[in-house]
């Protein structure tokens, strides 16, 4: 049963939301399994806070479920979900004072953490220093595995703009992390 559902496309699963309660549950469960992780990762890094990311994820899927009662066809479920999450994150960030969460500010230690873990913490902290559009482009590209074209469609900007955001953002990250990376190499 699970395998049978996993072979279905997002559009087919979406269509199941209009079926019987059992079909609706199966369709929603499979769509959640496919997309929840990406939406959460995106929300977590954009919002910078666990609880806020959880709220965004929750609201995203509940809105998605409610909207499915009015929207009979869906061509791109992933993009639709991302659009909902993105709007929610924008609203959340407007309300949120610009702070970096304690998780992100965790100071690397050399006792138990691996160097890669230290680098990861630093990288996450460096992401916060980027302009919002640069950060979002990098997150969508690296976390959600989206192409520049898909990011452009999701954010309503030309592909060339996305390319500039990603490249400039990564250059900025490299500059921030340069000292630490050089120490690693030594």
């Amino acid at each position: 049963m699970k395998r049978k559902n996993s072979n279905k496309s997002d559009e087919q699963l979406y269509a199941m939301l209009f079926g019987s309660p059992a079909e609706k549950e199966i369709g929603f469960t499979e769509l959640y399994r496919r997309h929840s992780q990406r939406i959460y990762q995106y929300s977590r890094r954009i919002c910078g806070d666990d609880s806020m990311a959880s709220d965004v994820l929750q609201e995203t899927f509940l809105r998605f479920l409610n909207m499915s009662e009015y929207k009979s066809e869906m061509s791109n479920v992933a993009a639709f979900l991302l659009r909902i999450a993105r709007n929610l994150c924008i609203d959340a960030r407007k309300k949120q004072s610009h702070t970096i969460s304690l998780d992100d500010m965790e100071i690397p230690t050399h006792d138990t953490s691996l160097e890669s873990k230290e680098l990861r913490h630093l990288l996450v902290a460096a992401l916060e220093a980027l302009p919002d559009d640069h950060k979002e482009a990098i997150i969508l590209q690296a976390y959600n595995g989206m192409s520049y074209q898909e990011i452009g469609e999701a954010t309503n900007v030309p592909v060339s703009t996305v390319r500039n955001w990603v490249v400039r953002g990564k250059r900025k990250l490299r500059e921030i992390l340069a000292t630490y990376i050089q120490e690693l190499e030594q």
Partner: protein
Amino acid sequence: MSELVYLFVDGETTHMQKEMLFAALADNSDLQQELQEAILIRSTLEQDCSALAVPPETTAAIFQKAGFALPGSAAAGKLSAASLIESVGMTLKSVVLPTLFVMGGAVLATMYFMLDSSSSQMSDREFAAPNASREQYSALPSAEKGALFGNPAIGETKRLFIGKDKRRQTRMSSERISSGRGITAAVQEQSSEMSENMFGVRTAREIRSENEDVQFQMQSNDVSAISASPLQHIKAESILPKFSSGMNSIDNFPYVLSTSYDDGNGGMPIAISIRGLMNMSAFPQQGNSALGSEFNNIALSIGADISEEMRIGIEGGRQSLRYYTFENGKNENAVLNTSIDWAGVFCRQSFQSLTYSQCTPYAQVTLGGTVSGPSGRFLAGVRWQTSRNFSLSAGLEGSAFLYQKSTNWHSLRSIGLMYDVEVKF
């Protein structure tokens, strides 16, 4: 050329751009360094991505609100047949539990009638007595109350009971009391007159014969006189000898006056009730699934009146609320719970001054717990006293349960309509 490095790492270069990049990398160490660092950044971002997992609590909350079973749990992804079986089960539950509720009420009512049948002859009159008359006694100075309890003449009547002038004496007592001469004076005078007419011990047959005669006349004449008396609230047998059972009624005389909720048998009045609840809303919101409308709320309580308006006791029950428990914090090990058992102590405050047409408003607070954590309940309703020992209630009931997942405390709350059947023994 630097831009091509990042495009290449992201897989966004064309074939021509790749060739250009490779050509440049061949003799440019800075570009090689930049490529290495771009790859490092990319891989680090991917590691961070994989480290971010959706918290199980969040998944549980989403599916709880959506009204679906949690993915990986036993109830998830059921076939239509399974759903049908589940809905049939829920339907049966919705029939069986109310039936149990009604049967429980019937058992309580039966217990009441069986236990109360021997002493219920005067219950209607007692039930009809207004509380104001009790307050009249309560308002007496303590010295006068003490006189009632300490009057040796009353004790005397336990052994030497009169028959001849009994009817006249009791009527006179009632009239004297009615005319405002005071309970103490009336009782003392009555006892004194009783003592003056003592001619010795009568035979049981004589006493029975006279009692029957007086009882018959009482039914036609004296009831109205007693009813008009300020002491109408007091059990008739406390002023009038209980003719059907001899002198025992006199034993109860001081006791009847000293308790607000006397049942004639002594001791603290005990009440048992069975209560149902129809959930109107739950928080976090429950989905519109079959489980959401499940009838699975029932409570049993036993309490004792500690004052005229206050009762304390214990109660316990089961309430339908959907929540998840986890093993090892993984969704795959989540268990969907559809009900929660609770127990606690309660305190109920009745508002007698607001009684209207035998309906008395009241409020109750229950504090207790479940196996998962503390719980609290508050209910407010109106009790309809259909008879002295039997009452029905209806109102609103709210409940809150705390439970712990991982290190965080979460709460389940609900509000609903409450209905209650109570028997007082």
